[in-house]
């Protein structure tokens, strides 16, 4: 056993805790709104609207912690993606998840002080944090202040198109969460990564 690595600084853990909690609130209230049914209500409609709005606003401000935290501290380094050989690296990592791990092979990109994420993680986190979350925030804010929305795009309600985008991306985020949670159990032990995001230290394989 090599020594533990301190990979998740305090600000990052605080951001992540708030983010995860708000995300779950948004998910549950969002589903409740979309599938609102007078006979069976998950959450009363007006409460769901209120909680969804509050959680969305908190998550949006919290996102600023993530953005500035990454700019101001060195954490952004871990997200740097090199184009060259990317596909090969991704395939290698996928191959590991599909077969290597069952054969007892070692992970092709072990976590070091310089490398927190494997290439697959990088791509997933980049897509989530710099594409999907911003789209959700922008469409969400627009729905909160619908007077900002172009009312009519090619005979379709602008609000509808905005809500559609909000809904589609939310599904991808839900999938991200499932995969994210599952791959977090692939650490040195099924719970070790969860301990890391709480106490900040990575437990190496």
């Amino acid at each position, binding site marked *: 056993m090599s020594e533990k690595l301190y990979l998740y600084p305090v600000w990052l853990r605080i951001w992540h805790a708030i983010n995860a909690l708000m995300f779950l609130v948004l998910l549950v209230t969002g589903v409740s*709104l979309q599938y609102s049914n007078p006979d069976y209500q998950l959450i009363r409609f007006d409460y769901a609207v209120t909680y969804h709005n509050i959680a969305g606003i908190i998550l949006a401000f919290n996102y600023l912690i993530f953005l500035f935290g990454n700019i101001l501290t060195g954490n952004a380094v871990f997200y740097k993606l090199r184009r060259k050989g990317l596909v090969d690296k991704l395939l290698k990592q996928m191959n590991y998840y599909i077969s290597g791990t069952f054969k007892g092979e070692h992970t092709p990109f072990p976590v070091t002080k310089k490398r927190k994420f494997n290439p697959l993680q990088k791509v997933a986190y980049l897509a989530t944090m710099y594409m999907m979350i911003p789209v959700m925030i922008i469409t969400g804010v627009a729905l909160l202040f619908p007077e900002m929305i172009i009312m009519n795009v090619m005979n379709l309600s602008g609000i509808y198109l905005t809500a559609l985008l909000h809904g589609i991306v939310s599904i991808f985020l839900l999938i991200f969460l499932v995969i994210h949670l599952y791959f977090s159990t692939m650490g040195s032990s099924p719970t070790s990564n969860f301990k890391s995001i709480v106490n900040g230290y990575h437990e190496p394989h």
Partner: protein
Amino acid sequence: MKIRYFLILIFLLSFSSLWAQLNVDMKSEPAKMEDNKRCFDCHSTHIYTFDNPVSGITERKEMNPNFVFNTDAFYSGVHRHFSCTDCHSPDYETFPHNAELRFEPMYSCIDCHGGDEAFASYHFETIEEEFGKSVHASKHNENFNCWMCHNPHSYKAMTRSDFKISEIVSAHNQMCASCHDNPLHFQRISDSTKKPLEEIHKFLPNFKLHFSAVRCIECHTAVEDTMWVAHNILPKEMAVKKCVECHSSSTMLISSLYKYQTIETRKNRGTFNSMLLNETYVIGANRNIYLNIFSIILFGLSLLGVAVHVFFRIKKK
């Protein structure tokens, strides 16, 4: 396929009374335009003039703003072919008007439309009955009449014409708001004062958006299947307050204004959903079927993937 068209035809026929077009000829030139000029000379401007026979000069005076009417609005209303003196006494042709004319009784809708086969599809008698039960009639029987909402000098039958839902909504709500949000008009009927509508309806998030997308009568009358304009305004305790009445797949919007318009648009486009999409987005009510299927499949696949992986992880341990 054929059966489907047949069913649609039956459906449309059963509502034929609703989508009957207007009898009034809305295209040709208004019949009494020349006649009405005499009155509009004074009653469409803020300054009117008359020759004072005593002093011999032409005087300019300001008109009471409530007596000034927009000629375009008059000629696009349902009574566009009328002469002013069809409803008002011919004695108004002289100026100054005879003071006694103030006591002149005015016609009500029923006086002309009651029992007339040509207007049977409008159900004037039913409407009169319903109005009689409404809070407006029961609280202010004497002063509150049909003209309070149906402006005699501009009323259009919008829901039967080719207007967008948003235009209908705004015109209908203006009928109510012009009195309820205007203390001067309101006090013509009642001494009581009411809070502004925005304050009364605080329970609705985004008041402005709601009031531009739903009509007052959607919440303040019982939804009726046979007559899409319910005239029985119910006491406030019975107003719709539950969000899911609209925000759900069984949205009541289907059976009010939207129903009528749906019948019209269904001819071209097919479903309630597509029609609703066109003008508004109602959370919980417009659901995109493809999006739903897509999300369930995607979610299922990701769970399946995880399950398979877990299985092999346990097995190969």
